[in-house]
């Protein structure tokens, strides 16, 4: 199983690459994707697409809608990557 820290670090890099005007230093585990990081609905779709590509997983739309914070997202990725497909 992947560690929270390593997934978190990869996610920060991915957010920095995907979202304009986002400083990696502003990202914390408990940051709210919308309220703290200003990730709008279009950007959210891009982040999900980037996560799917990076970790080779499929994130169904209903799951994606539930992800509100960086921490939730990290844990979702850990779970999804540790479950055999």
């Amino acid at each position: 199983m992947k560690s929270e820290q390593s997934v978190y670090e990869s996610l920060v890099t991915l957010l920095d690459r995907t979202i304009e005007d986002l400083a990696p230093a502003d990202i914390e585990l408990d940051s709210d994707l919308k309220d703290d990081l200003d990730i709008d609905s279009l950007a959210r779709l891009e982040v999900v697409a980037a996560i799917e590509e990076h970790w080779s997983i499929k994130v169904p739309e209903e799951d994606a809608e539930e992800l509100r914070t960086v921490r939730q997202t990290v844990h979702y990725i850990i779970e999804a990557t540790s479950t055999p497909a």
Partner: protein
Amino acid sequence: MTRSPCDVAITGLGATTPLGGDVPSTWQSLLAGKTGVCRFDLSAQCGHPLPVRIAAPAAVDPATQLSAAQVHHTDRNAQLALIAAREAWHDAGYHTPATSNDSTVAATRVAAVIGVAVGSYLSKFHQYDVLLREGPSRVDPRCIPMILPNHAAAQVGLLIGARASVHAPVSACASGAEALALALHLIRDGQATVAMAGGTDAALHPLTVAGFSRMRALSRRNDEPHLASRPFDATRDGFVLGEGAAMLVLENADHARRRGARIYGYLAGAGMSNDSHHVAQPSPDSAGTVQAITGALADAGIKASRIRHINAHATSTPVGDLAEANALHTALASATDNAVVSATKAAFGHTLGAAGALEALTTVLALAHRIAPPTCTLEEAGEGINLDIVGAQPRELPAGDLAALSTSLGFGGHNVALVLRGPS
């Protein structure tokens, strides 16, 4: 009582071209007689040998000049536009975006007019490949805004905070010049105080090469790329595809003077017309081009005899260059004797939607520095071309008030002529 229209000053310049990643490096290389044309073979990309294997790619990869996220969200034509607009905006002494408190112009008075001929080809084909290979869920959520013709204009509008209005004129290879003409009118009409005006294109793709090749429009001098783009030369055999972007900050001259801006020169007038003759061929009497040139002179209130420099559209096609030379003779008559002609596509190749803006920018620098740039490949002017064309060495322009003409023509019969004045 009607108010007389204001003068429109040029206060900022930006470019990223086959000769350099900014205006100073581009201008220096142009004066030095360098060319941006090189071997550029896209055959492997389409799996078929292409008949044309030369082009003039941007000297600096735009992706290296922007953040990873910006690159991710934009087509290459918008990347080039953003780099050129950033340079021009800072060059004019403005901060980005215009909404910040230290700005000297309200965002609601700022416009952006950015022309493209081709637009987001590369992203469009890439996203279509993704759709075919990986399915609809892999298509980029930003695909649509990225492939619309206003993509670069919208991106530049966001960059500088242009809230007066944003436009994306599409008139083939006249688009860049048409953008300047439209911006001129916006400022004269009082719709905007400052406008970012220019053009961009990044269409070095196998389909562009194959399509233009089928029209017999491209030079096939594959073994001598540096000599391939030969505007007005007797041995010209077609144009060379290029890519790039050029931006000019146009500004109500009173506003520019009040804030103490450096003024490179003035966009004094513009003329536009259409041949309504053929999708791609120039009309045999060049009447449309003549109409645009005389219209631009009248708009500027300048007699033909005051034109001392011309930056010709001259793409290096056998038919087009001759038709343009005829149009210049008809429109300017004996005044062509006193006008020094530069055909800078010799060095830049044909940057399509950027070309009209890039040539206007080059003309502004020529007037400001009183030097006409070389036509680096010219050896012997072709039959019927009786113009005083600058050859391999740049030529000094005379002292005193200077005015110049820049012409741009496009498939679809578009003709745009711009009259520019020097700073004095």
